[in-house]
């Protein structure tokens, strides 16, 4: 396949189609709507299922139903709509059915705005729905990576009978970049042995449910979910390092924030500052061991996010106070710019650095008067 100029949202939709998604259910919301629109055109022409649902609640529960059949199914939304889908995600986790969800994040809280943000991190990575469960969360930083991770998402969803979230934002969803789509994969219409497909020929009836009135039985399910998550943490951590070989400092960021950070890191390198970038690709499971390792050999870390420092807490947890950390973020749909990150890198490299206090407090103090 050749490289084409593709828009992020459309690329994800087409990648899902080529990965063999047989059904898409969604609801319009900016900045993810191109994904829905692309699906509305392509799925019917391929004889696959597309429904524009009455709400995100409707959409996520259509996904739940289709996922119970063991077929590949996907939905997408943006932050306020993602909040509505949390009910379904919890039920899907409790029922252990695979599905893929694309969250094209926008500014919040509330109705917020339609500009890029990373403020759904906590909602997506640390739950959102009720109960003990964690979805696999993939954070692309380009259109090409959005495509690649969408294909991977279906494989991981099936392998672990889990929800896999593509955590992207209005910037990556709306931008156009040259990228290559995968070839069209054949559709797998085989029913996994756990799935309900209304084909009770030569077998006992099957049912899928998230209800266990007997607490010990529910606990067994919870232990199974936790052990599966342990396995995911052991096998599926993905990240990318830039200029890290001789780095004394590192910027840590995901998605769009990491793109801005990479430009800043390149500029800092040109100035002779020994700084690299660690970009988690799986924000769940989080690259905890990598950060643990960095905390033992680096002079300082700078965490950058388009939120108030949500991933920052995971970085702090992984580094256990061993290394000075600073934080820089923009919120509410304001994009993070390379010049701003470069200024933060300068401050990091000149010090003084501390492991005392909270990086967020220092960031808020620095931002005073600037906004």
């Amino acid at each position: 396949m050749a490289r084409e100029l593709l828009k992020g949202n459309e690329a994800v939709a087409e990648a899902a189609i080529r990965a063999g998604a047989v059904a898409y259910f969604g609801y319009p919301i900016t900045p993810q709507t191109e994904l829905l629109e692309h699906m509305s055109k392509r799925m019917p022409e391929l004889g696959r299922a597309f429904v524009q649902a009455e709400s995100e609640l409707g959409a996520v529960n259509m996904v739940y139903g289709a996922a119970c059949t063991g077929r590949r199914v996907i939905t997408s939304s943006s932050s306020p709509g993602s909040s509505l889908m949390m009910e379904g995600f919890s039920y899907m986790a409790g029922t252990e059915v695979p599905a893929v969800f694309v969250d094209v994040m926008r500014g919040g809280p509330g109705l917020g705005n339609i500009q890029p943000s990373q403020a759904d991190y906590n909602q997506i990575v640390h739950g959102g729905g009720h109960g003990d469960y964690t979805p696999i969360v993939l954070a692309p930083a380009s259109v090409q990576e959005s495509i690649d991770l969408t294909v991977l998402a279906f494989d991981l969803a099936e392998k672990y009978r889990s929800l896999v979230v593509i955590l992207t934002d209005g910037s990556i969803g709306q931008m156009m970049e040259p990228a290559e789509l995968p070839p069209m994969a054949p559709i797998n219409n085989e029913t996994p042995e756990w799935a309900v497909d209304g084909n009770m020929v030569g077998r006992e009836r099957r049912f899928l449910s998230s209800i266990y009135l007997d607490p010990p039985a529910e606990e067994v399910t919870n232990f199974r979910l936790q052990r599966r998550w342990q396995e995911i943490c052991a096998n599926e951590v993905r990240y990318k390092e830039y200029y890290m070989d001789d780095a004394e400092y590192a910027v840590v960021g995901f998605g769009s924030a990491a793109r801005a950070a990479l430009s800043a890191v390149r500029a800092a390198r040109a100035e002779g500052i020994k700084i690299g970038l660690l970009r988690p690709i799986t924000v769940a499971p989080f690259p905890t061991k990598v950060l643990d390792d960095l905390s033992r050999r680096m002079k300082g870390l700078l965490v950058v996010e388009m939120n108030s420092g949500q991933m920052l807490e995971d970085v702090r947890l992984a580094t256990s106070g061993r290394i000075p950390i600073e934080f820089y973020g923009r919120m509410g749909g304001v994009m993070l710019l390379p010049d701003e990150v470069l200024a933060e890198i300068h401050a990091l490299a000149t010090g003084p650095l501390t492991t005392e206090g909270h990086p967020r407090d220092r960031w808020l103090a620095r931002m005073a008067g600037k906004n």
Partner: protein
Amino acid sequence: MATTNELEQVVYSHPKALADVSTHYCPGCTHGVAHRLIAEVIDEMGIQERMVGVASVGCSVFAYNYFDFDWVQAPHGRAPAMATGVKRVLPDRMVMTYQGDGDMASIGMGEIVHAAARGENITVFFLNNTNYGMTGGQMAPTTLPGQKTTTSVSGRDVETQGFPLRASELLATLDGASYVVRRSLHDPKNIRLAKKAIRTAFETQARGLGFSMVELLSTCPTNWGMTVPQATQWLEEKMIAFYPLGDFKVTQAVSEIRI
């Protein structure tokens, strides 16, 4: 299965589509009657092996334990959306939801209205017993004016608690709905009519004719605080007066179904 000689004829046996288990339903509740009617129709149509049921939240939450075919279990009110998901990827299966009035006519009103509006080719069984049974008899959107429940202890006051809604009449206004009827389970004659409607609803789906729903007026002696005969009488006298039995939407194509 009973063995018969030339002089004997089996007129009653356990439907194949009904699992051979005891249910958790209260004595005198008509869920059991509804279950049996649905199972009998599934047997008669020979569709047990390609059924997918979607259970709801409420007393019928465990319906999947009582029917012997494939089931999934939906979040509260979302059964029509889940059924849509199943049906759209497996269009040749027979997909039904089984929902109570709290589930379908309150929290799930958005899902049911739009499933009907889309003409989703599924069958909905709507059990209306005018209260939230599973949680102990709270006021439902179907609770009659003046009816006492645990959240309308002096009787439903329409001034502050609003009016009951008639889901069948409402859904019948939608172009996507093909077959919407109300039946009752309070006596043998009406039970037979209910079974006939269940058959027509499934036949509607089997022929790809679109959305079908059978509302079944049901008793809840436990939460109504009545004996079974009192509950049956209350249904007949009070409920039918507010929820008249009848066919609210039967498209031309459905009316031409000959069984």
